[in-house]
């Protein structure tokens, strides 16, 4: 497959959030069902839930500001989800081989959830603060990543991602990355001609090239928390150079001492654990004890 990309045009988006709902429905991600869930944290905005979470891979962000132009107001709608970086910091730091670029060459960053050891380095490393994790487990063993997969299960069967399929005004599109980039430039030119002088293409070069190509109608501050110039955190090098080889040696485990170094900065604490892929056991490398057996047949992951 050629390199593909999701296209998002913030100037055509009506913030209907059909994409956000579709993502949940296709990917079977639950929504809270407690009575009046979310009422107390409601912060006076349409942006709900307020950020990505373990069951939410995509949100539309809202930001408004007054402006002295014919419209009197700017209202920016952003698409917040994994950007599918070429230079993917998450892939670089992932010690277990869970996160990886799709082997078909689409450029999408996918994961094998069975390999996730719950270390959450990816979240610390991601310049867009995307990956989230669910579950509780013995010292992280039951914790699993969740983030946008570019609906790779659909893409492999020649279908557009669920979010793209839901978009009525054509703000979302999907196709060859080159085509999406060309389309984005055309659109930015049109926006500039209309007086939106800050309009820009976001994703062509960022992080070695994203596989989400964004047309931003306003300057990037209207799409918070989107960074103007996303960059690898210095942590990435440390984590990938040190943690990864060791992780590989221990098959998947995270070495206690190292983890502690980062735990000081990030509040994580891990014991040395080992995941036996054959027997699906999580084993304490110190004691050899089976901390948790993953019952695959019962659907546990």
């Amino acid at each position, binding site marked *: 497959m050629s390199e593909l990309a999701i296209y998002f045009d913030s100037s055509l988006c009506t*913030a*209907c*959030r*059909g994409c*956000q*709902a579709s993502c*949940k*429905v296709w990917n079977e991600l*639950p*929504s*809270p*069902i407690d*009575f*009046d*869930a*979310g*009422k107390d*944290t*409601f*912060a*006076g*905005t*349409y942006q*709900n*839930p307020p950020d990505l979470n373990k069951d939410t891979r995509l949100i539309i962000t809202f930001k*408004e*500001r*007054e402006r002295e132009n014919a419209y*009197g*107001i700017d*209202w920016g709608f952003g698409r917040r989800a994994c950007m599918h970086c070429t230079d993917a910091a998450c892939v670089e730091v992932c010690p277990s081989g869970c996160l990886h670029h799709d082997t078909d060459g689409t450029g999408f960053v996918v994961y094998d959830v069975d390999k996730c050891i719950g270390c959450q380095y990816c979240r610390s490393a991601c310049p867009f603060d995307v990956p989230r994790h669910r579950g509780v487990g013995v010292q992280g063993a039951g914790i699993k990543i969740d983030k946008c997969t570019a609906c790779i299960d659909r893409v492999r069967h020649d279908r557009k991602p669920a979010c793209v399929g839901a978009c009525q005004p054509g703000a979302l599109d999907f196709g060859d990355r080159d085509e999406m980039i060309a389309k984005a430039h055309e659109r930015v030119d049109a926006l500039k001609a209309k007086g939106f002088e800050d309009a820009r293409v976001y994703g062509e070069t960022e992080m070695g090239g994203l596989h989400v190509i964004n047309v931003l109608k306003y300057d990037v501050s209207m799409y918070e928390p989107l960074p103007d110039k996303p960059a690898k955190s210095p942590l990435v090098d440390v984590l990938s150079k040190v943690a990864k080889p060791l992780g590989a040696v221990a098959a998947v485990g995270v070495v206690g001492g190292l983890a502690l170094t980062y735990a000081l900065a990030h509040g994580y604490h891990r014991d040395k654990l080992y995941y036996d892929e054959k027997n699906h056991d999580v084993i304490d490398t110190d004691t050899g004890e089976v901390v948790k057996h993953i019952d695959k047949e019962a659907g546990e992951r």
Partner: protein
Amino acid sequence: MIKGYWFFGQNPLQSLGNSKYLRNVIANLDWLVFDDMYMTETASFWDAPDMRDKASEINTECYFLPIASLFEKNGTVINSGRVMQWRYQAIEPRGDSKWDLEAIWLVHQRLRQLYEEEGGALPDPILNAKWDYAGDDGKPDMRKVAWELNGYSTYGATEDFENGTPKLLDGYSKLKADGSTASGVWIYTGYYGNPDAPFDPAQQNVGRRLRDDPDGLNIFPKWAFSWPANRRILYNRASCDMDGKPWREGLAPVEWDGEKWVTNDVPDFVASKTDSDGNTVAVEPNNKAFFMNWEQNARLFASTLNDMPLPEHYEPFESPTENLLNGAGSNPAMLFNSYDSNKKGTSGTYPIVATTYSFTEHWSSGAETHNAPVLNEMMPTQYCELPTELAQEKGIENGDDVRIFNDRGSIVVKAMVTKRITPLTVNGSKQYTIGIVHDWGWANVYTHGDITNDLVPGVGDPNSFIAENKAFLVDIEKA
């Protein structure tokens, strides 16, 4: 003397203006029947926060009939674009829930039995009602109802309905005023008009699904049926000039080619006629574009509206200003505006103009959408959008609880402080407007809120009866 009311899939005690007043007076009825998929504010009016405590004093007898959802029944669906489509049942209704029609059917049968056994006032409409729509299973057959709506020849119709051989009519031009035909709704005639397959909706216009789109006009004339006469665009003659030439080349549903009308849509004007020899001849372009009017012309001065022959501006029932355009105030023909229950407020007491609306995630009274957790998650609570300046004046922060009130009611919702609603200057002074979403109530399983329509006056438009929900006076404070 009205003794009771039967609600079909409606939630007026949430969606009508002056809701608080209405839910209090409805308790004077002897009985109520609610036919719905969900428990609504109407079906549980006695459980309103302001009525709950004295619910034991309410003597109204209430029946809730659980009704099948749209996936659990078949029949005709019609959208507001006039397209009628046949929908097939996908799954069996859950539990004891039934189709709406079956519910009416069972009640009718029982009523009829009671009238036969015991007699009663005005028996004729019940005992003589035509009600021969039973299918093989004894339940109502929606296809037979479709025959009734579409229309048929009445000659031998009683046997026809028994034998499944209705003489269906293919267009309303076949309807006669002499009793030889019948039709439930003349504008539908032709939607189910194929007498060769009365039991197969797929062979009826309403069930066809052809994707042809001549000239790429997005008309799709053979996809289902559009009432009346499968006309997709009303007044389509107006797409051409006096000579029948399209105003926009290549985008005309009808066009005069010099000899005849070329039609991609069913003409909504007289395009041909029958001459004295019985031949069909084209009618040359003329100025008669509106053939439902007796003179077939457009009307600037319309005699059919109850309040005015020409458009006029009126202020709402409650307004912060005089009517500066004509001095008339609000519409003199407005309905129900003299009722005391409306408790008209003035801008002296209630200086803020409020409007109400819905938003993407929730539909109408929210009975259906509030039962989808994914939608609740995207907008978890009822809110009011208010201008930043007003919020500052009142000490209201984004996300605070605010109380909005007038003499009709008082509700508490969350504040959404925004620059998108700017204050206006009216008669030289600053006028604030706030916008309140109305899709909440107390009856939902996952989320609850107040009834925004408690604040709205119960007045109506003199032509459509549509309530004036979109402009009224309130005050607001931090709750």
